[in-house]
Protein backbone atom coordinates (compact mmCIF):
# COMPACT_ATOMS: atom_id res chain seq x y z
CA UNK A 1 0.00 0.00 0.00
CA UNK A 2 1.27 3.45 -0.85
CA UNK A 3 1.71 5.68 2.13
CA UNK A 4 -0.75 8.52 2.54
CA UNK A 5 1.81 11.06 1.43
CA UNK A 6 2.05 9.56 -2.04
CA UNK A 7 -1.57 8.64 -2.38
CA UNK A 8 -2.55 10.01 -5.77
CA UNK A 9 -6.05 10.77 -4.48
CA UNK A 10 -4.60 13.52 -2.30
CA UNK A 11 -3.35 15.50 -5.31
CA UNK A 12 -5.18 18.74 -5.97
CA UNK A 13 -7.68 18.39 -8.79
CA UNK A 14 -7.52 14.59 -8.86
CA UNK A 15 -11.24 14.16 -8.32
CA UNK A 16 -12.20 17.00 -10.65
CA UNK A 17 -10.14 15.77 -13.58
CA UNK A 18 -11.29 12.20 -13.07
CA UNK A 19 -14.92 13.26 -13.05
CA UNK A 20 -14.46 15.47 -16.11
CA UNK A 21 -12.89 12.64 -18.08
CA UNK A 22 -15.60 10.21 -17.07
CA UNK A 23 -18.31 12.68 -18.07
CA UNK A 24 -16.75 13.44 -21.45
CA UNK A 25 -16.31 9.73 -22.15
CA UNK A 26 -19.60 8.38 -20.95
CA UNK A 27 -22.19 11.18 -20.93
CA UNK A 28 -23.06 10.71 -24.62
CA UNK A 29 -23.52 6.98 -24.12
CA UNK A 30 -25.68 7.55 -21.08
CA UNK A 31 -27.80 10.13 -22.88
CA UNK A 32 -28.29 7.86 -25.89
CA UNK A 33 -29.20 4.95 -23.65
CA UNK A 34 -31.72 6.97 -21.63
CA UNK A 35 -33.32 8.61 -24.64
CA UNK A 36 -33.67 5.27 -26.38
CA UNK A 37 -36.45 4.65 -23.87
CA UNK A 38 -38.14 7.98 -24.64
CA UNK A 39 -41.79 7.82 -25.63
CA UNK A 40 -41.52 11.01 -27.68
CA UNK A 41 -41.01 11.34 -31.42
CA UNK A 42 -38.54 14.11 -30.61
CA UNK A 43 -34.87 13.47 -29.90
CA UNK A 44 -34.64 15.95 -27.05
CA UNK A 45 -38.01 16.21 -25.29
CA UNK A 46 -38.57 13.59 -22.63
CA UNK A 47 -42.13 12.33 -22.55
CA UNK A 48 -41.92 9.30 -20.34
CA UNK A 49 -40.56 5.75 -20.52
CA UNK A 50 -41.52 3.57 -23.43
CA UNK A 51 -40.16 0.70 -25.49
CA UNK A 52 -41.74 2.01 -28.70
CA UNK A 53 -38.40 2.66 -30.45
CA UNK A 54 -37.18 -0.81 -29.64
CA UNK A 55 -40.39 -2.14 -31.14
CA UNK A 56 -39.82 0.16 -34.10
CA UNK A 57 -36.43 -1.41 -34.74
CA UNK A 58 -37.98 -4.86 -35.01
CA UNK A 59 -41.34 -4.11 -36.67
CA UNK A 60 -41.04 -0.52 -37.91
CA UNK A 61 -40.63 0.61 -41.54
CA UNK A 62 -36.84 0.18 -41.41
CA UNK A 63 -36.92 -3.17 -39.61
CA UNK A 64 -36.25 -5.22 -42.72
CA UNK A 65 -33.13 -3.25 -43.52
CA UNK A 66 -31.84 -3.51 -39.95
CA UNK A 67 -32.54 -7.22 -39.68
CA UNK A 68 -30.61 -8.00 -42.84
CA UNK A 69 -27.78 -5.74 -41.73
CA UNK A 70 -27.69 -7.31 -38.26
CA UNK A 71 -27.64 -10.79 -39.76
CA UNK A 72 -24.74 -9.81 -42.04
CA UNK A 73 -22.89 -8.25 -39.14
CA UNK A 74 -23.18 -11.28 -36.90
CA UNK A 75 -22.31 -13.77 -39.62
CA UNK A 76 -19.26 -11.74 -40.57
CA UNK A 77 -18.25 -11.21 -36.95
CA UNK A 78 -18.53 -14.91 -36.08
CA UNK A 79 -16.65 -16.16 -39.12
CA UNK A 80 -14.05 -13.37 -39.04
CA UNK A 81 -13.40 -13.76 -35.31
CA UNK A 82 -13.16 -17.55 -35.54
CA UNK A 83 -10.77 -17.47 -38.49
CA UNK A 84 -8.69 -14.64 -37.04
CA UNK A 85 -8.47 -16.44 -33.68
CA UNK A 86 -7.28 -19.66 -35.32
CA UNK A 87 -4.63 -17.77 -37.29
CA UNK A 88 -3.63 -15.73 -34.23
CA UNK A 89 -3.29 -18.88 -32.11
CA UNK A 90 -0.93 -20.40 -34.64
CA UNK A 91 0.97 -17.12 -34.94
CA UNK A 92 1.32 -16.88 -31.16
CA UNK A 93 2.52 -20.48 -30.95
CA UNK A 94 5.11 -19.76 -33.60
CA UNK A 95 6.21 -16.48 -32.06
CA UNK A 96 6.31 -17.54 -28.41
CA UNK A 97 7.45 -21.15 -28.85
CA UNK A 98 9.50 -20.72 -31.99
CA UNK A 99 12.65 -19.69 -30.15
CA UNK A 100 14.81 -16.92 -31.52
CA UNK A 101 14.38 -16.90 -35.25
CA UNK A 102 15.81 -14.27 -37.53
CA UNK A 103 12.75 -12.24 -38.35
CA UNK A 104 11.05 -12.46 -35.00
CA UNK A 105 10.89 -8.73 -34.30
CA UNK A 106 9.88 -8.08 -37.88
CA UNK A 107 7.16 -10.73 -37.63
CA UNK A 108 5.78 -9.20 -34.47
CA UNK A 109 5.76 -5.80 -36.17
CA UNK A 110 3.91 -7.20 -39.15
CA UNK A 111 1.31 -8.87 -36.96
CA UNK A 112 0.59 -5.80 -34.88
CA UNK A 113 0.99 -3.21 -37.65
CA UNK A 114 -2.76 -2.93 -38.38
CA UNK A 115 -3.21 -1.61 -34.84
CA UNK A 116 -0.88 1.29 -35.55
CA UNK A 117 -1.83 2.17 -39.13
CA UNK A 118 -4.73 4.66 -39.39
CA UNK A 119 -7.83 2.70 -40.25
CA UNK A 120 -8.65 4.91 -43.21
CA UNK A 121 -5.30 4.00 -44.79
CA UNK A 122 -6.04 0.34 -44.24
CA UNK A 123 -9.50 0.81 -45.72
CA UNK A 124 -8.25 2.55 -48.85
CA UNK A 125 -5.45 0.05 -49.28
CA UNK A 126 -7.82 -2.89 -48.95
CA UNK A 127 -10.22 -1.34 -51.43
CA UNK A 128 -7.45 -0.70 -53.96
CA UNK A 129 -6.22 -4.25 -53.48
CA UNK A 130 -9.63 -5.78 -54.15
CA UNK A 131 -10.13 -3.52 -57.16
CA UNK A 132 -6.73 -4.32 -58.62
CA UNK A 133 -7.31 -8.06 -58.50
CA UNK A 134 -10.80 -7.58 -59.82
CA UNK A 135 -12.52 -8.96 -56.75
CA UNK A 136 -16.21 -8.05 -56.90
CA UNK A 137 -17.26 -6.24 -53.74
CA UNK A 138 -19.86 -7.87 -51.54
CA UNK A 139 -20.12 -9.83 -48.29
CA UNK A 140 -17.01 -11.83 -49.08
CA UNK A 141 -14.80 -8.76 -49.42
CA UNK A 142 -16.06 -7.48 -46.06
CA UNK A 143 -15.36 -10.86 -44.49
CA UNK A 144 -11.82 -11.08 -45.85
CA UNK A 145 -11.01 -7.53 -44.75
CA UNK A 146 -12.41 -8.24 -41.29
CA UNK A 147 -10.38 -11.43 -40.89
CA UNK A 148 -7.25 -9.48 -41.76
CA UNK A 149 -7.71 -6.62 -39.34
CA UNK A 150 -9.05 -8.85 -36.53
CA UNK A 151 -5.85 -10.92 -36.37
CA UNK A 152 -3.81 -8.46 -34.25
CA UNK A 153 -6.71 -7.99 -31.84
CA UNK A 154 -6.99 -11.74 -31.34
CA UNK A 155 -3.20 -12.14 -31.27
CA UNK A 156 -2.44 -9.85 -28.34
CA UNK A 157 -4.39 -11.62 -25.54
CA UNK A 158 -3.41 -15.05 -26.89
CA UNK A 159 0.31 -14.34 -27.01
CA UNK A 160 0.18 -12.59 -23.62
CA UNK A 161 -1.40 -15.70 -22.20
CA UNK A 162 1.08 -17.97 -23.86
CA UNK A 163 4.07 -16.06 -22.55
CA UNK A 164 2.82 -16.90 -19.08
CA UNK A 165 2.87 -20.64 -19.75
CA UNK A 166 6.24 -22.20 -19.02
CA UNK A 167 7.49 -24.59 -21.66
CA UNK A 168 8.25 -27.18 -19.01
CA UNK A 169 4.60 -28.32 -19.23
CA UNK A 170 5.05 -29.34 -22.83
CA UNK A 171 8.40 -30.90 -22.03
CA UNK A 172 6.77 -32.89 -19.25
CA UNK A 173 4.10 -34.06 -21.69
CA UNK A 174 6.73 -35.11 -24.24
CA UNK A 175 8.69 -36.79 -21.47
CA UNK A 176 5.54 -38.75 -20.57
CA UNK A 177 5.31 -40.22 -24.07
CA UNK A 178 2.91 -37.68 -25.61
CA UNK A 179 3.52 -36.85 -29.26
CA UNK A 180 4.07 -33.19 -30.16
CA UNK A 181 0.50 -33.01 -31.36
CA UNK A 182 -0.83 -34.49 -28.10
CA UNK A 183 1.31 -32.12 -26.07
CA UNK A 184 -0.27 -29.25 -28.00
CA UNK A 185 -3.89 -30.39 -27.85
CA UNK A 186 -3.90 -31.90 -24.35
CA UNK A 187 -1.64 -29.49 -22.52
CA UNK A 188 -0.86 -26.24 -24.32
CA UNK A 189 -4.28 -25.60 -25.86
CA UNK A 190 -6.29 -26.03 -22.63
CA UNK A 191 -3.86 -23.77 -20.83
CA UNK A 192 -4.15 -21.17 -23.56
CA UNK A 193 -7.94 -21.36 -23.68
CA UNK A 194 -8.65 -18.25 -21.57
CA UNK A 195 -6.42 -16.21 -23.91
CA UNK A 196 -8.04 -17.74 -26.97
CA UNK A 197 -11.59 -17.00 -25.76
CA UNK A 198 -10.54 -13.51 -24.80
CA UNK A 199 -8.97 -12.97 -28.20
CA UNK A 200 -12.04 -14.33 -29.97
CA UNK A 201 -14.40 -12.00 -28.11
CA UNK A 202 -12.19 -9.01 -28.76
CA UNK A 203 -12.01 -9.83 -32.46
CA UNK A 204 -15.77 -10.40 -32.52
CA UNK A 205 -16.48 -6.96 -31.06
CA UNK A 206 -13.99 -5.21 -33.31
CA UNK A 207 -15.56 -6.84 -36.34
CA UNK A 208 -19.12 -6.17 -35.22
CA UNK A 209 -18.45 -2.48 -34.62
CA UNK A 210 -16.27 -1.75 -37.61
CA UNK A 211 -17.46 0.99 -39.89
CA UNK A 212 -14.64 2.56 -41.89
CA UNK A 213 -13.14 -0.47 -43.56
CA UNK A 214 -16.54 -2.08 -44.03
CA UNK A 215 -17.88 1.05 -45.68
CA UNK A 216 -15.03 1.03 -48.18
CA UNK A 217 -15.01 -2.61 -49.16
CA UNK A 218 -18.73 -3.43 -49.03
CA UNK A 219 -20.60 -3.86 -52.26
CA UNK A 220 -23.55 -1.75 -53.29
CA UNK A 221 -26.65 -2.73 -51.34
CA UNK A 222 -24.71 -4.89 -48.86
CA UNK A 223 -24.96 -3.43 -45.38
CA UNK A 224 -23.70 -4.31 -41.93
CA UNK A 225 -25.24 -2.85 -38.82
CA UNK A 226 -22.83 0.11 -38.51
CA UNK A 227 -23.18 1.04 -42.21
CA UNK A 228 -26.96 0.63 -42.03
CA UNK A 229 -27.10 2.89 -38.99
CA UNK A 230 -24.94 5.43 -40.79
CA UNK A 231 -27.24 5.25 -43.81
CA UNK A 232 -30.24 5.91 -41.61
CA UNK A 233 -28.62 8.79 -39.80
CA UNK A 234 -27.87 10.53 -43.07
CA UNK A 235 -31.60 10.87 -43.59
CA UNK A 236 -32.05 12.44 -40.16
CA UNK A 237 -31.63 11.05 -36.68
CA UNK A 238 -34.63 9.22 -35.36
CA UNK A 239 -34.99 7.75 -31.87
CA UNK A 240 -34.90 4.19 -33.28
CA UNK A 241 -31.20 4.78 -33.98
CA UNK A 242 -30.71 5.33 -30.29
CA UNK A 243 -32.47 2.07 -29.53
CA UNK A 244 -30.36 0.12 -32.00
CA UNK A 245 -27.18 1.81 -30.75
CA UNK A 246 -28.07 0.90 -27.19
CA UNK A 247 -28.54 -2.72 -28.18
CA UNK A 248 -25.19 -2.76 -29.98
CA UNK A 249 -23.63 -1.16 -26.94
CA UNK A 250 -25.04 -3.88 -24.66
CA UNK A 251 -23.61 -6.61 -26.88
CA UNK A 252 -20.22 -4.91 -26.68
CA UNK A 253 -20.40 -4.52 -22.91
CA UNK A 254 -21.37 -8.16 -22.42
CA UNK A 255 -18.56 -9.36 -24.68
CA UNK A 256 -15.91 -7.19 -23.08
CA UNK A 257 -17.08 -8.24 -19.62
CA UNK A 258 -16.89 -11.92 -20.50
CA UNK A 259 -13.49 -11.35 -22.07
CA UNK A 260 -12.28 -9.63 -18.91
CA UNK A 261 -13.41 -12.39 -16.59
CA UNK A 262 -12.17 -15.17 -18.83
CA UNK A 263 -8.75 -13.61 -19.13
CA UNK A 264 -8.64 -13.28 -15.37
CA UNK A 265 -9.26 -16.97 -14.70
CA UNK A 266 -5.84 -18.48 -14.36
CA UNK A 267 -5.92 -22.19 -14.92
CA UNK A 268 -2.19 -22.48 -14.53
CA UNK A 269 -2.60 -21.97 -10.81
Amino acid at each position, binding site marked *: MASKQFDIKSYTGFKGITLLCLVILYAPLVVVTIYSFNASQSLTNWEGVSLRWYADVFIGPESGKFKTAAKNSFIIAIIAATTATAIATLAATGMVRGGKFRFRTLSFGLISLPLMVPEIVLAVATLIFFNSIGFERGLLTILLAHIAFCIPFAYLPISARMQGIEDSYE*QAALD*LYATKRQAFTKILLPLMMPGIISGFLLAFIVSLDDFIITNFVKGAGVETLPTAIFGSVKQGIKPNIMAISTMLLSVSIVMVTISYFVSKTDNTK
Partner: protein
Amino acid sequence: MSDKVNIAIDVRDAVKRYGDFTALKKISLSIMDNEFFTLLGPSGCGKTTLLRMIAGFEAVTEGAIYLYGDEIENLPPNKRPVNTVFQNYALFPHMTILDNVAFGLEMRGKSKSEARTKAGEMLELVQLSQFSARKPSQLSGGQQQRVALARALAPQPKVLLLDEPLSALDLKLRKAMQLELKHLQRETGITFIFVTHDQEEALTMSDRIAVMSAGELQQLGAPTDIYERPHNMFVADFIGETNLLEVSVDGIENGRATCHLGGGHELTCNAVEGVGIGSTVHMSIRPERLYMSETPVETEGLHGRIKENIFVGTDITTIVQLDEGPDFVVRTSNSDRGNKRIFEPGVEMFVNMELGAARLLVD
Protein backbone atom coordinates in the same frame (compact mmCIF):
# COMPACT_ATOMS: atom_id res chain seq x y z
CA MET B 1 33.16 -54.30 -17.08
CA SER B 2 32.40 -57.89 -17.92
CA ASP B 3 28.67 -57.54 -18.50
CA LYS B 4 27.64 -54.45 -20.41
CA VAL B 5 24.00 -55.27 -19.72
CA ASN B 6 24.39 -53.84 -16.26
CA ILE B 7 25.11 -50.40 -17.62
CA ALA B 8 21.90 -48.35 -17.67
CA ILE B 9 23.25 -45.19 -19.21
CA ASP B 10 26.55 -45.00 -21.00
CA VAL B 11 27.75 -41.52 -21.87
CA ARG B 12 30.65 -41.63 -24.29
CA ASP B 13 32.70 -38.53 -25.06
CA ALA B 14 29.59 -36.38 -24.95
CA VAL B 15 30.14 -32.76 -25.93
CA LYS B 16 27.54 -30.02 -25.85
CA ARG B 17 28.14 -26.67 -27.49
CA TYR B 18 25.84 -23.69 -27.71
CA GLY B 19 27.40 -21.55 -30.40
CA ASP B 20 30.84 -20.62 -29.06
CA PHE B 21 30.06 -21.74 -25.55
CA THR B 22 30.95 -25.31 -24.56
CA ALA B 23 28.62 -26.50 -21.81
CA LEU B 24 30.01 -30.04 -21.68
CA LYS B 25 33.60 -30.92 -22.56
CA LYS B 26 33.88 -34.56 -23.53
CA ILE B 27 32.17 -36.31 -20.65
CA SER B 28 32.30 -40.08 -20.36
CA LEU B 29 30.61 -41.98 -17.60
CA SER B 30 28.64 -45.16 -17.05
CA ILE B 31 25.63 -45.35 -14.79
CA MET B 32 24.85 -48.82 -13.52
CA ASP B 33 21.50 -50.54 -13.49
CA ASN B 34 19.59 -50.05 -10.25
CA GLU B 35 21.94 -47.34 -9.08
CA PHE B 36 21.23 -44.08 -7.30
CA PHE B 37 23.57 -41.88 -9.27
CA THR B 38 24.09 -38.18 -8.59
CA LEU B 39 25.43 -35.44 -10.82
CA LEU B 40 26.81 -32.88 -8.40
CA GLY B 41 28.22 -29.46 -9.11
CA PRO B 42 27.70 -25.71 -8.82
CA SER B 43 25.25 -23.98 -11.14
CA GLY B 44 26.54 -23.76 -14.68
CA CYS B 45 28.69 -26.88 -14.39
CA GLY B 46 26.70 -28.71 -17.06
CA LYS B 47 24.92 -31.22 -14.85
CA THR B 48 21.42 -30.21 -15.92
CA THR B 49 22.53 -30.06 -19.54
CA LEU B 50 23.73 -33.66 -19.30
CA LEU B 51 20.44 -34.70 -17.70
CA ARG B 52 18.46 -32.96 -20.43
CA MET B 53 20.57 -34.70 -23.05
CA ILE B 54 19.65 -38.04 -21.52
CA ALA B 55 15.99 -37.01 -21.42
CA GLY B 56 16.14 -35.91 -25.05
CA PHE B 57 15.51 -32.20 -24.60
CA GLU B 58 19.00 -31.25 -25.75
CA ALA B 59 20.82 -32.69 -28.72
CA VAL B 60 24.31 -34.15 -28.27
CA THR B 61 26.83 -32.07 -30.24
CA GLU B 62 29.46 -34.81 -30.31
CA GLY B 63 29.73 -38.26 -28.81
CA ALA B 64 26.88 -40.60 -27.94
CA ILE B 65 24.58 -41.72 -25.17
CA TYR B 66 23.54 -45.34 -24.83
CA LEU B 67 20.58 -46.63 -22.86
CA TYR B 68 20.97 -50.31 -22.00
CA GLY B 69 23.25 -50.69 -25.01
CA ASP B 70 21.06 -48.82 -27.52
CA GLU B 71 22.05 -45.46 -28.89
CA ILE B 72 19.26 -43.00 -28.16
CA GLU B 73 20.48 -39.92 -29.98
CA ASN B 74 17.82 -40.14 -32.67
CA LEU B 75 14.92 -40.87 -30.33
CA PRO B 76 12.67 -37.92 -29.43
CA PRO B 77 11.87 -37.50 -25.71
CA ASN B 78 8.53 -39.30 -26.05
CA LYS B 79 10.22 -42.42 -27.43
CA ARG B 80 12.78 -42.72 -24.62
CA PRO B 81 11.89 -45.00 -21.72
CA VAL B 82 13.11 -42.41 -19.23
CA ASN B 83 11.01 -39.99 -17.21
CA THR B 84 11.89 -36.73 -15.56
CA VAL B 85 10.96 -35.10 -12.28
CA PHE B 86 11.26 -31.42 -13.16
CA GLN B 87 12.72 -28.80 -10.86
CA ASN B 88 9.44 -26.85 -10.79
CA TYR B 89 7.50 -30.16 -10.96
CA ALA B 90 5.61 -29.00 -14.12
CA LEU B 91 2.40 -30.66 -12.96
CA PHE B 92 -0.37 -30.01 -15.47
CA PRO B 93 -2.37 -27.29 -13.70
CA HIS B 94 -5.66 -27.97 -15.48
CA MET B 95 -5.74 -31.66 -14.55
CA THR B 96 -6.46 -33.42 -11.29
CA ILE B 97 -3.70 -35.18 -9.41
CA LEU B 98 -5.01 -38.55 -10.58
CA ASP B 99 -5.11 -37.45 -14.23
CA ASN B 100 -1.61 -36.04 -13.90
CA VAL B 101 -0.26 -39.37 -12.71
CA ALA B 102 -2.32 -41.29 -15.29
CA PHE B 103 -1.11 -39.09 -18.19
CA GLY B 104 2.04 -41.02 -19.03
CA LEU B 105 0.25 -44.36 -18.84
CA GLU B 106 -2.50 -43.14 -21.17
CA MET B 107 0.01 -41.77 -23.63
CA ARG B 108 1.64 -45.20 -23.63
CA GLY B 109 -1.63 -46.66 -24.85
CA LYS B 110 -3.20 -47.87 -21.63
CA SER B 111 -6.97 -47.52 -21.44
CA LYS B 112 -8.33 -44.70 -19.33
CA SER B 113 -9.59 -47.01 -16.56
CA GLU B 114 -6.39 -49.07 -16.52
CA ALA B 115 -4.27 -45.93 -16.38
CA ARG B 116 -6.34 -44.54 -13.53
CA THR B 117 -6.15 -47.74 -11.50
CA LYS B 118 -2.37 -47.79 -11.86
CA ALA B 119 -2.19 -44.07 -11.09
CA GLY B 120 -4.21 -44.69 -7.94
CA GLU B 121 -1.68 -47.31 -6.85
CA MET B 122 1.17 -44.87 -7.46
CA LEU B 123 -0.56 -42.21 -5.39
CA GLU B 124 -0.91 -44.77 -2.62
CA LEU B 125 2.81 -45.43 -2.82
CA VAL B 126 3.53 -41.76 -2.17
CA GLN B 127 0.69 -41.55 0.38
CA LEU B 128 -1.44 -39.04 -1.49
CA SER B 129 -4.52 -41.11 -2.33
CA GLN B 130 -6.85 -38.77 -0.50
CA PHE B 131 -5.83 -35.88 -2.78
CA SER B 132 -6.41 -37.60 -6.12
CA ALA B 133 -9.37 -35.39 -7.09
CA ARG B 134 -7.59 -32.12 -6.30
CA LYS B 135 -5.77 -29.78 -8.62
CA PRO B 136 -1.99 -29.33 -8.21
CA SER B 137 -2.40 -25.77 -6.90
CA GLN B 138 -4.35 -27.11 -3.93
CA LEU B 139 -1.36 -29.09 -2.66
CA SER B 140 1.67 -27.96 -0.69
CA GLY B 141 5.13 -27.91 -2.23
CA GLY B 142 6.10 -31.21 -0.65
CA GLN B 143 2.91 -32.88 -1.84
CA GLN B 144 3.34 -31.53 -5.38
CA GLN B 145 6.84 -32.92 -5.37
CA ARG B 146 5.53 -36.39 -4.47
CA VAL B 147 2.89 -36.16 -7.20
CA ALA B 148 5.64 -35.29 -9.69
CA LEU B 149 7.52 -38.35 -8.48
CA ALA B 150 4.47 -40.60 -8.78
CA ARG B 151 3.74 -39.25 -12.25
CA ALA B 152 7.27 -39.92 -13.45
CA LEU B 153 7.40 -43.40 -11.89
CA ALA B 154 3.93 -44.52 -13.04
CA PRO B 155 4.93 -45.57 -16.58
CA GLN B 156 7.76 -47.61 -15.02
CA PRO B 157 10.64 -45.94 -16.82
CA LYS B 158 13.96 -47.71 -17.11
CA VAL B 159 15.69 -44.65 -15.74
CA LEU B 160 14.27 -41.83 -13.63
CA LEU B 161 15.84 -38.40 -14.03
CA LEU B 162 15.52 -35.94 -11.17
CA ASP B 163 16.43 -32.31 -11.81
CA GLU B 164 17.06 -30.68 -8.41
CA PRO B 165 13.61 -31.79 -7.26
CA LEU B 166 14.15 -30.90 -3.61
CA SER B 167 15.56 -27.40 -4.01
CA ALA B 168 12.20 -25.67 -3.48
CA LEU B 169 11.46 -27.41 -0.19
CA ASP B 170 12.37 -26.22 3.26
CA LEU B 171 15.15 -27.94 5.16
CA LYS B 172 13.13 -30.38 7.27
CA LEU B 173 10.94 -31.49 4.40
CA ARG B 174 14.01 -31.82 2.21
CA LYS B 175 15.66 -34.18 4.70
CA ALA B 176 12.51 -36.28 4.93
CA MET B 177 12.20 -36.41 1.13
CA GLN B 178 15.84 -37.43 0.76
CA LEU B 179 15.17 -40.59 2.74
CA GLU B 180 11.85 -41.18 1.01
CA LEU B 181 13.50 -40.91 -2.40
CA LYS B 182 16.23 -43.31 -1.37
CA HIS B 183 13.67 -45.84 -0.13
CA LEU B 184 11.55 -45.43 -3.25
CA GLN B 185 14.60 -46.11 -5.38
CA ARG B 186 15.32 -49.32 -3.48
CA GLU B 187 11.69 -50.45 -3.59
CA THR B 188 11.18 -49.83 -7.29
CA GLY B 189 14.64 -50.93 -8.39
CA ILE B 190 14.65 -48.19 -11.02
CA THR B 191 17.90 -46.43 -11.85
CA PHE B 192 17.79 -42.87 -10.50
CA ILE B 193 19.90 -40.05 -11.90
CA PHE B 194 19.74 -37.16 -9.50
CA VAL B 195 21.01 -33.66 -10.21
CA THR B 196 21.87 -31.36 -7.33
CA HIS B 197 24.20 -28.60 -6.25
CA ASP B 198 23.84 -29.62 -2.61
CA GLN B 199 26.80 -31.77 -1.63
CA GLU B 200 25.22 -32.94 1.60
CA GLU B 201 22.17 -34.15 -0.30
CA ALA B 202 24.42 -35.98 -2.74
CA LEU B 203 26.41 -37.66 0.02
CA THR B 204 23.24 -38.73 1.86
CA MET B 205 21.42 -40.34 -1.03
CA SER B 206 23.81 -41.55 -3.66
CA ASP B 207 25.41 -44.87 -4.46
CA ARG B 208 27.86 -42.99 -6.63
CA ILE B 209 28.49 -39.33 -7.32
CA ALA B 210 29.91 -37.58 -10.35
CA VAL B 211 31.32 -34.22 -9.31
CA MET B 212 31.24 -31.77 -12.18
CA SER B 213 32.64 -28.30 -12.70
CA ALA B 214 32.87 -26.04 -15.75
CA GLY B 215 31.58 -28.75 -18.06
CA GLU B 216 34.09 -31.33 -16.94
CA LEU B 217 33.95 -34.43 -14.80
CA GLN B 218 36.13 -33.79 -11.73
CA GLN B 219 35.73 -37.07 -9.89
CA LEU B 220 33.49 -40.10 -9.95
CA GLY B 221 33.05 -42.39 -6.99
CA ALA B 222 31.12 -43.52 -3.95
CA PRO B 223 30.29 -40.81 -1.39
CA THR B 224 33.05 -41.98 0.96
CA ASP B 225 35.61 -41.96 -1.88
CA ILE B 226 34.72 -38.47 -2.87
CA TYR B 227 34.71 -37.20 0.67
CA GLU B 228 37.74 -39.02 2.04
CA ARG B 229 39.85 -39.11 -1.07
CA PRO B 230 39.14 -36.02 -3.13
CA HIS B 231 41.12 -36.05 -6.33
CA ASN B 232 41.68 -32.36 -6.83
CA MET B 233 41.29 -28.90 -5.31
CA PHE B 234 37.80 -28.40 -6.68
CA VAL B 235 36.39 -31.61 -5.23
CA ALA B 236 38.08 -31.14 -1.86
CA ASP B 237 36.79 -27.61 -1.61
CA PHE B 238 33.29 -28.27 -2.96
CA ILE B 239 32.52 -31.34 -0.88
CA GLY B 240 32.31 -30.61 2.81
CA GLU B 241 34.60 -28.33 4.76
CA THR B 242 38.32 -28.77 4.58
CA ASN B 243 41.71 -27.27 5.39
CA LEU B 244 43.37 -26.53 2.07
CA LEU B 245 47.11 -26.01 2.58
CA GLU B 246 49.80 -25.23 0.11
CA VAL B 247 52.65 -27.68 0.61
CA SER B 248 55.91 -28.55 -1.06
CA VAL B 249 56.66 -32.23 -1.52
CA ASP B 250 60.20 -32.84 -0.32
CA GLY B 251 60.49 -36.58 -0.54
CA ILE B 252 58.60 -39.73 -1.40
CA GLU B 253 59.53 -43.02 0.19
CA ASN B 254 57.59 -46.28 0.41
CA GLY B 255 54.47 -44.59 -0.86
CA ARG B 256 54.62 -41.87 1.75
CA ALA B 257 55.25 -38.27 0.85
CA THR B 258 56.98 -35.82 3.15
CA CYS B 259 55.51 -32.36 2.81
CA HIS B 260 56.42 -28.94 4.16
CA LEU B 261 53.78 -26.38 4.87
CA GLY B 262 55.85 -23.38 5.83
CA GLY B 263 56.98 -22.28 9.26
CA GLY B 264 59.04 -25.46 9.59
CA HIS B 265 56.02 -27.68 9.91
CA GLU B 266 56.23 -31.09 8.34
CA LEU B 267 53.62 -33.70 7.54
CA THR B 268 53.72 -37.11 5.89
CA CYS B 269 50.89 -38.58 3.94
CA ASN B 270 50.18 -41.10 1.20
CA ALA B 271 51.74 -40.21 -2.11
CA VAL B 272 49.36 -39.88 -5.03
CA GLU B 273 49.89 -40.38 -8.69
CA GLY B 274 50.69 -37.17 -10.51
CA VAL B 275 52.42 -35.46 -7.60
CA GLY B 276 56.19 -35.83 -7.67
CA ILE B 277 59.11 -34.68 -5.56
CA GLY B 278 59.71 -30.93 -5.65
CA SER B 279 56.19 -30.04 -6.68
CA THR B 280 54.13 -27.47 -4.84
CA VAL B 281 50.56 -28.66 -4.51
CA HIS B 282 47.61 -28.44 -2.17
CA MET B 283 46.78 -30.75 0.67
CA SER B 284 43.32 -31.32 2.08
CA ILE B 285 42.69 -32.25 5.72
CA ARG B 286 39.12 -32.57 6.97
CA PRO B 287 38.70 -30.59 10.22
CA GLU B 288 36.94 -33.44 12.01
CA ARG B 289 39.98 -35.65 11.55
CA LEU B 290 42.20 -33.31 13.54
CA TYR B 291 42.41 -33.22 17.28
CA MET B 292 44.31 -31.16 19.84
CA SER B 293 46.54 -32.12 22.75
CA GLU B 294 48.92 -30.51 25.23
CA THR B 295 51.88 -32.65 24.13
CA PRO B 296 52.47 -34.02 20.62
CA VAL B 297 50.83 -37.42 20.30
CA GLU B 298 52.85 -38.45 17.30
CA THR B 299 55.82 -36.93 15.63
CA GLU B 300 53.53 -34.94 13.42
CA GLY B 301 52.02 -32.75 16.06
CA LEU B 302 51.92 -29.18 14.81
CA HIS B 303 52.53 -26.54 17.44
CA GLY B 304 50.18 -23.58 17.52
CA ARG B 305 47.87 -21.32 19.47
CA ILE B 306 44.08 -21.30 19.77
CA LYS B 307 42.51 -18.28 18.10
CA GLU B 308 38.82 -18.89 18.57
CA ASN B 309 36.23 -21.49 19.54
CA ILE B 310 32.88 -21.44 17.74
CA PHE B 311 29.98 -23.46 19.08
CA VAL B 312 27.81 -24.80 16.24
CA GLY B 313 25.47 -27.19 18.03
CA THR B 314 26.68 -30.66 17.17
CA ASP B 315 30.30 -29.55 16.94
CA ILE B 316 32.77 -27.07 18.26
CA THR B 317 34.87 -25.45 15.57
CA THR B 318 38.29 -24.28 16.71
CA ILE B 319 40.52 -21.99 14.69
CA VAL B 320 44.19 -22.61 15.37
CA GLN B 321 47.11 -20.49 14.22
CA LEU B 322 50.22 -22.57 13.68
CA ASP B 323 53.57 -21.02 14.62
CA GLU B 324 54.53 -18.89 11.60
CA GLY B 325 52.21 -21.03 9.55
CA PRO B 326 48.71 -21.10 8.19
CA ASP B 327 45.44 -21.22 10.14
CA PHE B 328 43.88 -24.58 10.79
CA VAL B 329 40.24 -25.39 11.40
CA VAL B 330 39.70 -28.23 13.85
CA ARG B 331 36.28 -29.67 14.50
CA THR B 332 35.47 -31.54 17.65
CA SER B 333 32.18 -33.34 17.93
CA ASN B 334 30.24 -32.48 21.03
CA SER B 335 29.91 -36.16 21.86
CA ASP B 336 33.70 -36.60 21.71
CA ARG B 337 34.44 -34.02 24.32
CA GLY B 338 35.24 -36.66 26.91
CA ASN B 339 38.10 -38.01 24.76
CA LYS B 340 39.16 -34.91 22.92
CA ARG B 341 40.22 -31.70 24.54
CA ILE B 342 38.96 -28.20 23.96
CA PHE B 343 41.36 -25.40 24.83
CA GLU B 344 40.62 -21.81 25.73
CA PRO B 345 41.63 -19.10 23.22
CA GLY B 346 45.27 -18.03 23.57
CA VAL B 347 46.44 -21.40 24.87
CA GLU B 348 49.33 -23.10 23.10
CA MET B 349 48.88 -26.73 22.11
CA PHE B 350 49.53 -29.29 19.39
CA VAL B 351 47.29 -30.20 16.46
CA ASN B 352 47.38 -33.90 15.61
CA MET B 353 46.06 -35.74 12.62
CA GLU B 354 44.37 -39.11 12.37
CA LEU B 355 46.09 -41.62 10.13
CA GLY B 356 45.30 -41.03 6.47
CA ALA B 357 43.56 -37.73 7.13
CA ALA B 358 45.86 -35.68 4.90
CA ARG B 359 45.32 -36.00 1.19
CA LEU B 360 47.50 -34.59 -1.57
CA LEU B 361 45.54 -33.04 -4.42
CA VAL B 362 46.24 -32.89 -8.10
CA ASP B 363 45.68 -29.23 -9.00
